[in-house]
């Protein structure tokens, strides 16, 4: 069966970050985590999102508040890009 959860400690060791950072992300609603028998896990589906945040934090030195703003704006960009594709396809009707 495919692995569904990753131990937060494994994730943090792998990315060289503090466990506290992931818990902060959870507190701010940026990632979902799961508590099972007193151990925190990160759902595998959340990994791309969590890794992107870690890159913003460690590679670009952006703090949590900045990450929150960026994440919101990226979500808006994603929605707008989908809308642009939809409108472009609609526009083809009149060309």
């Amino acid at each position, binding site marked *: 069966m*495919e*692995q569904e959860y*990753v131990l937060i400690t*494994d*994730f943090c060791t*792998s*990315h*060289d970050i503090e466990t506290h950072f992931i818990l902060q992300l959870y507190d701010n609603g940026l990632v979902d985590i799961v508590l099972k028998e007193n151990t925190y896990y990160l759902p*595998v589906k959340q*990994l*791309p999102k969590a*890794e*992107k945040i870690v*890159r*913003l934090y*460690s*590679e*670009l*030195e*952006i703090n949590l508040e900045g990450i929150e703003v*960026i994440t919101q704006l*990226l979500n808006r*960009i*994603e929605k707008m*890009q989908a809308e642009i*594709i*939809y409108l*472009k*396809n*609609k526009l*083809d*009707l009149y060309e």
Partner: protein
Amino acid sequence: MKFIDYYKVLGLTKSAKPSDIKKAYRKLARKYHPDVNPNDKEAEKKFQEINEANEVLSDPEKRKKYDKYGKDWQHAEEFEKAKASQQSAYGRSRREGYSQNYGAHDFSDFFESMFGGATADFSRQRTTRFRGQDFNAELKLHLRDVYTTHKQTLTVNGKNIRITVPAGIENGQTIKISGHGGPGQQGGPKGDLYITFSIINNTPFKRDGNNLYTTVNLDLYKALLGGEITVNTFDGQVKLNVKPETQNGSQVKLKGKGFPIYKKNNAFGDLYITYNIVTPKKLTEKEKALIKELAALRNN
């Protein structure tokens, strides 16, 4: 191979201090990082350039070599070759391994020729990821291709992948092929492959979602008196009854003759036909006389 002015890439002069380099690099990396510029190929290219410039200028050894040979980097190559021949076998194999591990292919030919591939800060961090890197690819298909579900073979990073393209896929739509991205690290899962479809339409049909639109020329007399015509649909010809006194620009709907609905078996959109009434040309004297008679009849 083109010479790359790494100082210019970072907006610096040759006298820049290490702190200036770090500062300039951080500023540009924040601007062009792929994570903050999704689906922006220009930003991705720019990010690679600044990454490469930083790789060279932030390393005192590399910067020294770059400053020394600069535009005459070909001489540096010769210099390196001579130097390499004196090195031990251990030294060579170690350097090669280093380059392979950290994906030197992300750098320009100029960089490779001068430094033989190296590790960028970001590349190094990538290798420690738990999950493999996601890959993005674009697949160009014709509208006719996506009318039916079919198989396609793609080559991604030298590996052939056979995928099923479901009928009815939209232009600009992205699908995820799980586990076909980069390999995971430390036993982690592979990344995913994202394929964005670019659908080229060179048919007489316009598409809006699942519906198709086309224009059909209609003879004036058939428009006036009604009758049967044969029209082209996406999957063949059908016979259509034209109502008497059909107006120019009027539309009829052929239910279920549109495009397949994505991931819904045997479900189709509709085909909308717009009539373009064509008036006859080069009228004979007799025709003109009869039409005048008709006009007079209508005006009375």
